[in-house]
């Protein structure tokens, strides 16, 4: 089975992860622009980060046969540094038009401050202008209220819910998000957020319409194989492969294909090891022969 992980921060992951992901059947990934675990203090740090996820990281992924996309945006935590946020707003249009950008995101609320609200709205308008989907990060604290407020604000700006992905949902938020017509994404985390078992229950209850899952793996304790592992658990629990395919591949593709920048043909003929000749030294493969894909199930 083929998988898409539509939310993963590969910048903080190793090549071992890429190898394991490729082996587990992940063919495409989306790297939302996020914070790096500590706040940036200079606009140049944002520029280099954006530049890396529209170029270098996509190249790195291609060496493992994985097609890489990203989203561009100022995350809510760092929106609270207003003078810096202003400078980042100037940068965003330059990066949001790039080839592998499939949404503005992840944007939304963290502490739900006035500054967060301001830059959430500015970026909603940017997405409208550039006709890009929006990826919304829902807060860890006061999640339900933050999620409802995010949707209210989006609708206030006249955004069509079918062009928005609301991420990090849980049992408390799923119903209202689905009801209002948004793409409803779940992050499967080993400790916080959703666990695989709970996710199976959500799919059993709500089906697969407009629902998809991601790993949001980053620099913290997280698992870049969350999507294929949860898929396996769903299959083991008797959920049909059509539903599993929708939740772990097709729905994310449909949501982000609206950008015009993501399509199945980007990987169906294989991003496969295009640069396998590069074992000389400047490639990330450094000496070892490139791994070939096989069908063995490592999960």
């Amino acid at each position, binding site marked *: 089975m083929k998988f898409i992980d539509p939310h993963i921060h590969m910048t903080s992951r190793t090549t071992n992860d890429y190898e394991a992901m490729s082996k587990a059947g992940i063919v495409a990934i989306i790297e939302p622009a996020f914070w790096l675990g500590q706040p940036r203090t200079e606009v140049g740090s944002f520029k280099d980060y954006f530049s890396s996820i529209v170029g270098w990281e996509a190249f790195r992924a291609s060496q493992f046969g994985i097609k890489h996309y990203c989203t561009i945006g100022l995350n809510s935590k760092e929106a609270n540094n207003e003078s810096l946020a202003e400078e980042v707003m100037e940068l965003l249009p330059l990066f949001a038009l790039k080839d592998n950008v499939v949404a503005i995101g992840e944007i939304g609320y963290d502490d739900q401050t006035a500054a967060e609200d301001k830059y959430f709205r500015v970026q909603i308008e940017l997405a409208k202008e550039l006709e890009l989907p929006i990826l919304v990060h829902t807060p860890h604290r006061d999640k339900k209220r933050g999620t409802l407020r995010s949707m209210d604000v989006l609708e206030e700006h006249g955004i069509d819910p079918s062009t928005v992905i609301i991420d990090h949902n849980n049992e408390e938020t799923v119903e209202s998000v689905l009801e209002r017509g948004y793409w409803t994404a779940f992050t499967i985390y080993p400790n916080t957020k959703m666990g695989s078992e709970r996710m199976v229950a959500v799919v059993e209850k709500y089906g697969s319409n407009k629902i998809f899952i991601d790993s949001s793996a980053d620099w913290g304790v997280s698992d870049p194989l969350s999507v294929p592992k949860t898929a396996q658990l769903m299959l083991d629990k008797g959920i049909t492969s059509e539903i599993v395919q929708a939740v772990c591949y097709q729905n994310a593709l449909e949501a982000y294909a609206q950008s*015009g920048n993501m399509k199945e043909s980007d990987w169906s003929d294989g991003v496969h*090891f295009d640069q396998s000749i590069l074992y000389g030294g400047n490639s*990330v493969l450094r000496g070892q022969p490139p791994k070939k894909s096989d069908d063995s199930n490592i999960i």
Partner: protein
Amino acid sequence: MRLSELIKEYCLNELKDEKIKSWLDQKLHSIKTDKDFFISFALINKKIPRGHLQLSLSQLQIIQLKYPEFNIENWTLDQLCRFSLLIYYPLLSVESLTKLISVADTREQISIFKSIPYLENASYFAPIVVNGIRTNIVDVFDAIALKNPYPASYFSQDEWNQMILKAVFMERPIYQIKDIDQRKNEKLAHILFDYARERWAASRRVTPELWRMISGYITEKLFVEMIKKMAEGNAQDQKAMLKLIQESNLDAAQQWLNSQSTQIEPISWDQIGSDFWHNNQALQNASKA
């Protein structure tokens, strides 16, 4: 007609959507600020299709006759539209181009590096191109190093040598580098021979194209070392080493050659490079299948 006008005409002809066509035409003649320039450049991704140009035979002949170096078949429409924006923007400074590259994605960087040789003040941008060679993204490296007249014209000897060594290291097709023979030099020959020793110590092969850059600079000592390795090489390696020996004025080389009984088939360095490259590509494709 100047190259810029010719390319502009071809691009506009190719754009069937009238709205996009007039957008580009207007931008080519109206951009007055870096900000407008950056956004217009970025919008090419969204607005312009990516195929190769459908040129008529006469169009192709015109450009090939007037600008034989340009190789229009190596360019796609979106790349040519970026080329046009760059060439028509009157305020393109080193500073603005540096900034443009710092926010460019892979496809844009490729267009920029392919375009720089044709800009009016091309020589100003040498530090940008030299820095571009430091990329780890192969396609960007290739846009500078392969089929691009810029490095041979503007790189210093050390910069040139760095690029060649990196191209060898990354296993790029050396024969596709412009003026590869004209810019050979003794320092490079010794750097590459050292590189070969390193590879041999690790039981790895070197590209047969390496000998092309060493030819003319072989010393007696290096010759003896090379001959020892010759038997271990495959047919491609041996052809290249033989060619180096044939081109050498060294007494030892000539004596060795005279002692050989078999006839040596003439072959060009380009052919050696192209055979090696295509053979490697075929091996790779086979390993993917």
